[in-house]
């Protein structure tokens, strides 16, 4: 029954892609302001561990998610201070932040009695609508079977798209990212905008990380993001800094990542190691074609460039 296989693999694609959707949409906001946040992977790890910790303590995944978002936003301020105020090299700061986030999350995970790594959380996010509607043809599994975070991620994507292109502040955001000197001359607060959007990006990455522990794996282990943060950064570029495209790209990534699962359902047997590299190959190929086809690049022209007013 191939329709069933298709629908099931799409459902898996959605849940696998959701952390990437959240982190990537946030990264769009950060990068639109001209700050290249390569630290997404580390920020997600912070969100994952803090969210799990709070949830095991409170039995409320919502409380866990809120803390994950706040902790990640605070963590991303390291990037803010170094990249915006101290004008450090953003590539170095980002990569260092991944390593730091990984170490810090492992440390947090080793604390407590029993340590988080050996706890199991009973409280996770559950589907919003009752089981009975999940079986409705097509729309049931595809649209109605998800947990609240998935719906939040959809709303977030729509809000980001609307915010960037249809609001005054969004226009200011684009100006700051493309040309901070012009934005400054127009009276916009370049550093303020950058700090704000670094924090928003961090918060969204935290939500993405939290989703891993509070739904996808319902467990915590070291370096559990396994490259998802990097994928988010890559997909942001692939989606030319547009969140609706990012949503599609993230789900495509989710579908390809879960191809092993799909093929198992179909009874095929292909080495999983081979399947694991497939998403990256696809990303490279698509990227080549997308960048060749783009007429007017959306890439923030001042991406990764610190702004210093009195530089001559």
């Amino acid at each position: 029954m191939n329709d069933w296989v298709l629908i099931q693999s799409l459902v898996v694609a959605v849940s696998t892609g959701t952390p990437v959707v959240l982190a990537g949409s946030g990264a769009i906001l950060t990068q639109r302001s001209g700050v290249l946040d390569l630290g997404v992977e580390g920020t997600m790890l912070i969100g994952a561990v803090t969210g799990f910790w709070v949830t095991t303590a409170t039995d409320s995944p919502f409380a866990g998610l809120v803390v994950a978002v706040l902790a990640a936003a605070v963590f991303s301020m390291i990037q803010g201070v170094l990249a915006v105020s101290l004008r450090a090299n953003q590539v170095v700061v980002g990569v260092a932040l991944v390593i730091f986030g990984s170490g810090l999350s492992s440390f947090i995970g080793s604390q407590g009695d029993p340590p988080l790594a050996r706890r199991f959380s009973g409280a996770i996010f559950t589907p919003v609508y009752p089981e009975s509607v999940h079986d409705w043809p097509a729309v049931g599994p595809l649209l109605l079977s998800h947990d609240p975070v998935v719906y939040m991620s959809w709303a977030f994507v729509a809000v980001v798209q609307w915010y960037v292109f249809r609001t005054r502040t969004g226009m200011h955001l684009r100006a700051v990212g493309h040309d901070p000197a012009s934005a400054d001359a127009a009276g916009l607060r370049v550093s303020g905008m950058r700090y704000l959007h670094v924090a928003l990006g961090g918060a969204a990455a935290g939500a993405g990380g939290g989703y891993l522990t509070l739904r996808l794996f319902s467990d915590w282990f070291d370096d559990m993001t396994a490259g998802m943060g990097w994928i988010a950064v890559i997909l942001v570029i692939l989606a030319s800094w547009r969140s609706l495209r990012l949503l599609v790209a993230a789900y495509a990534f989710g579908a390809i990542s879960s191809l092993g699962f799909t093929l198992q359902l179909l009874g095929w047997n292909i080495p999983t190691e081979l399947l694991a590299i497939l998403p990256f190959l696809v990303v490279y190929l698509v990227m080549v074609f997308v960048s060749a086809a783009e007429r007017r690049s959306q890439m923030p022209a001042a991406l990764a460039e610190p702004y210093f007013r009195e530089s001559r």
Partner: protein
Amino acid sequence: MEPAVRTRGLSKDFFGQSVLEDVDFDLRWGEIHALLGENGAGKSTLCSILAGLYHPTRGEMMLAGAPYSPHSPHAALEAGVGMVYQHFRLVEQMTVAENILLGNPDVPVRMTASGLADRAREVMDRHGLWIEPTRYVADLAVGEKQQAEIIRLLNRGVKVLILDEPTAVLTPREAEALFATLRNLADQGQGVILVTHKLREVQQSADTVTVLRSGKKVAHQGVEDTTTHDLARLMIGDDLAPGSGVDASHTTGDKLLELHSVSVVSDAATRPELDDVSLTVRAGQIVGVAGVSGNGQRELAEVITGLRTTTSGTIRLRGEDISSQTIGSRINKGMGFVPEDRLTRGLVLGLEIEDNVLLRSQRDREFSIGPFLRLSAIRQWARRLIDRFDIRGVRKGLPISVLSGGNLQRLILARELSRQPALLVASEPTRGLDVGAAEAVRTTLKTERGRGVGILLFSGDLEEVLGISDEVVVMYEGRIVASRPASEVDVAQVGRWMAGVT
């Protein structure tokens, strides 16, 4: 009525070096006030202070009679002072409407592209100016960008408009349109400050002029009460009047550079970049190449210096065929090159002067032992060049990007000439320089000629070509259409050749 702007004792230091000293400046409402001075005289600094970009080290400012000390460009804008920079403060990747309304608090929080365009149209109608609001700034011509910039500032309620060298990037027709716009704004009561080093513009468009020299105010008067000659003297100082270069008597020597039937064809479908070009440069001779830009001058310079390869023909330097030699070996055989685009091809702006003077000489025994550099020798040499060529503004430990255009050009000349080349290929050596700096460069070229250097000079400035060359060649569509001694031709004749009329 209180003056629009008044400064008293305004001073600014950069890295301990004074660039503006005790300047008293007054701007009245409804006037176009020219701010005149050479590059590095402090015009841009004064304006940047008025516009809130820099903070004065000392001194005070008044705006419409009230104390004025903007801590940012935004604060200046709020107060009604706006500046049109040489590099426009427009976001290239966004539309005209978005740029005009950027930072405008009246724009609704929620907006659409068409709503924004309507608003921009309204603004433009109000000021009698027009640029299609839905176009992307990147697609505009330079003059249109400037108009968009002015509209943007007017929309922010600017009452004092400062323009930094606004015509440097404009065609003559665009410049006329700009002056008409400015006159119109002044008639509406705006104060307009026009920064320039072109005397003709002052006479043509301004009411009042303030002259700055080396960071100090040297004059402030009505344009009607002064002549171009007076202004030139005030601007440059008495010590160096334009055209004072002494024409050293010299003799013409052996053939240095010989091009024989050189052609460059990069695409068989279009006309060749260079078509059967033959010319000779002798020792102690300046050969000036005239022509409308894009008729093969750049290709000719590149083919001689080795940046481009010939399709056919031979190039000889002191009798030796160098057509297929590398750039490095041409340099070693005595060729110097002042590239047209000095900022990208001539210098490394992010490096200090020592590194820049070393380029081309990095393998010399004098400056290196194997792979190691002899830093003290290099430093001493750089200091000698600074003294000999009067390069000003060099600061230890800072990149050369802090130097003004004239000093950068002097630096390139210093580097090339210090290698004592037999032949110097100079492309547009005075472009973008003010009167004094350009004259200094020409004097240097003439001095070198007197010492027996052969010079091939490419210049878009016809008067310059005719003024210092011994021999003039004219290029048209990749060919040399005329070659005469400079004394036998006049501007009108050369102009006709340049236009392809024979």
